[in-house]
Structure formats: structure tokens, C-alpha cells
């Protein structure tokens, strides 16, 4: 599966890439919303993993733009964020398949969320 990872922190990104690659996925990592849109166009990802706290445009802005293209409306998006998810309202129209709070999410839980999203899509 092709995964677009939108993660601003280099070390965390390196860790996620390593773990996801071990599972046999192809990963493309970007650190900003603008780059994510450009790369999504090139990669045609099967899944997106998104941090909401991004420089310039935040993850919600990315989601609105991403979902505005018809070919990306069904692609599962997993939010994995440092933002307090109890205080965030995300419209169901944005089609977020899983909302994870980073400090409480182990690598295994992230993988489980990815595998679940894959199983639902396929």
C-alpha cells in the first residue's frame, strides 16, 4: 500500500517510515500541507497519515483541500496528532477513519489503525 505520511518532526517521521516499511508499505513523507497536496497528486496514496499541527496551513485545512478533489474523497485518512483530540471537532464530511492522540498511541496501535483502514478499503 502507498502511504502519504504528513509529519513535521523528522525523527518521528523516520520512526514511522521505518515501522511502516517493515510492514511492506511504500511511504512518502512530507512535512507541510502544501507539499502533501503536490505529492498526493504524484503518489496517488492509498492511505494518508496526518498530523494536524503543521507549519503554515494546518492539517484541517489540508483535509478540506484534499477532500475537495473527487479522486481523493474515499482515501482513508488517519489523524495522528499532538493536538488534544477531545477539544477538536472534525466534520464527519471530512471522512477521518481514525483519530489518534500521539502521546497515547504506540507504534503497534498506529499499525493496527493502518491495517484496519486497509482492510476496510479493500
Amino acid at each position: 500500500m502507498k502511504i502519504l505520511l504528513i509529519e513535521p518532526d523528522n525523527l518521528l517521521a523516520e520512526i514511522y517510515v521505518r515501522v511502516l516499511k517493515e510492514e511492506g508499505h511504500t511511504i512518502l513523507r512530507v512535512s507541510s500541507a502544501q507539499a502533501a497536496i503536490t505529492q498526493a497528486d504524484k503518489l496517488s496514496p492509498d492511505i494518508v497519515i496526518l498530523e494536524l499541527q503543521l507549519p503554515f496551513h494546518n492539517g484541517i485545512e489540508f483535509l478540506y483541500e484534499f477532500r475537495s478533489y473527487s479522486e481523493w474523497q474515499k482515501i482513508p485518512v488517519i489523524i495522528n496528532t499532538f493536538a488534544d483530540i477531545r477539544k477538536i471537532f472534525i466534520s464527519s464530511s471530512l471522512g477521518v477513519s481514525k483519530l489518534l492522540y500521539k502521546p497515547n498511541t504506540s507504534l503497534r496501535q498506529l499499525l493496527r489503525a493502518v491495517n484496519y483502514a486497509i482492510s476496510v478499503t479493500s
Partner: protein
Amino acid sequence: MFSLKEEEGNYLVEHIANDRLLRAVAEQLKLPLLQIVHLADLMQSSQEESDLRNVRYVAQTALQLVDGFLLSADSRNQEVFQLEPVSIASVLNDTAHKLTPMARQNECKLELSVKGRYEPVMANHRFLESALMLLGYGMIESRSADSDNRQVLLAAHKSNRGLVAGVFDDLPAIGIDSLRRGRALFGDTRQPVPSAFSSSSASIFVADALFRAMETTLYPARHRRFTGLAATFHLSTQLSIL
């Protein structure tokens, strides 16, 4: 002379500022702690030397942030803080050396740009070193970019107002309004300077507090073609004799 009410007011303002800074620091500390947790998970299955190195470097970054916060909270204590003649060039040199592993980790080219000899300025060695380190951390780590070969400069130059020292890079400039808004919002919001930093920017605001303790302030500045954050220290002809 201060009245009791004024003193109470000052104490309250300082207390609130420290409280906000503490919340920003706590928010930022989530990142290194999560990195350590994940690295520890990885190390269960693989014994890679680079993971161990990363754990060490992440923990050191976190310690620097905590230490910087404690220094800033202690700036009124004369046993901890006193102005003294400090050579900025030498502090920048030490800071560049310490920041090199982080720059490497973040695929940045870190350069020291201190041309010429500068006379000492009135500052505090420990505060200045901590402030520049934290500023460096903030500029290197929290300003992620998708471009390769990002350049970060630890630099000093003379201006009409004194000696300017700071950290600069080749990413879009941080505006004065963004910094001003960030100062008003840090601790209350998770991303106070969203146009420039993806984190709580605690390291930037702790550095700001340390610079303020040294009677100067952090502001957006320019060095050659680079932009960044810097502080100006007044040059004294008396100190140049020392």
C-alpha cells in the same frame, strides 16, 4: 519606589508569564518523550546504535528546555543571574558545536558566521548560551521544511544599535506580527506561531525570556541573505578596554 500594590502586581504578572511558559514547555516536552518511547519500542527488536544515539540526543534536548525554563524562572535570583562581560563569538562557537548533532539529524547544514573581533557585551554566559541553544533547537527542529540542504546560521554582526546575535535560516522570514501574536498566545494555544513553527515553540519563548532577563529582546532579523530571530546587545567602549 514601588508600592505594595505595584509589587503584588509585578509578582502576579511574572507568575502568570511563568505559568504560560511552563504550559508551553510541558506541551513541547511531549515530543521528545514520545520519541524516546517509540525509540525504546524499536530497540526491543533491533539493537541499532543510531537509535541509542537518538535517545541520548532527544533526552538532552528536553533537558536543555527544562533547564532553560528554570533559569528564566530564576532570573530575579542574584545568585543565579548577574550581568557580566561575555564574548558572544565564543558563546556562539560553543553553541554551534553543541547544535551540530541536531542539525545533522534534521539534515540541516549548520554554519557559524562570526566575522571579525567583537568586544564583550554585558550579558550572562549561562543565560546567553542557554538562550542561543534553545533558539537553535527551535529554528532547526520546529521549522521543518521539505527542501533538502536547508541552511541554518548561528551568526553575529554589528549594527547601529550594537551587536546582533541570533539564529538564521533560508526559510520564509518570521514576521514581527507573527512573533508578537505568538508572545500573546504561547502557553494558551498549542501552535502560537503557526506560520513558522509546528510546535508550541516553547524553546523560542524560553529563549525570549532569557534574553529579556539580559535586558534585550528577541526580534525578527536578517543576516546576509538569511532571516531569523536575534537579539541586540549594546556595545560598551569601557568593556572593549577589558
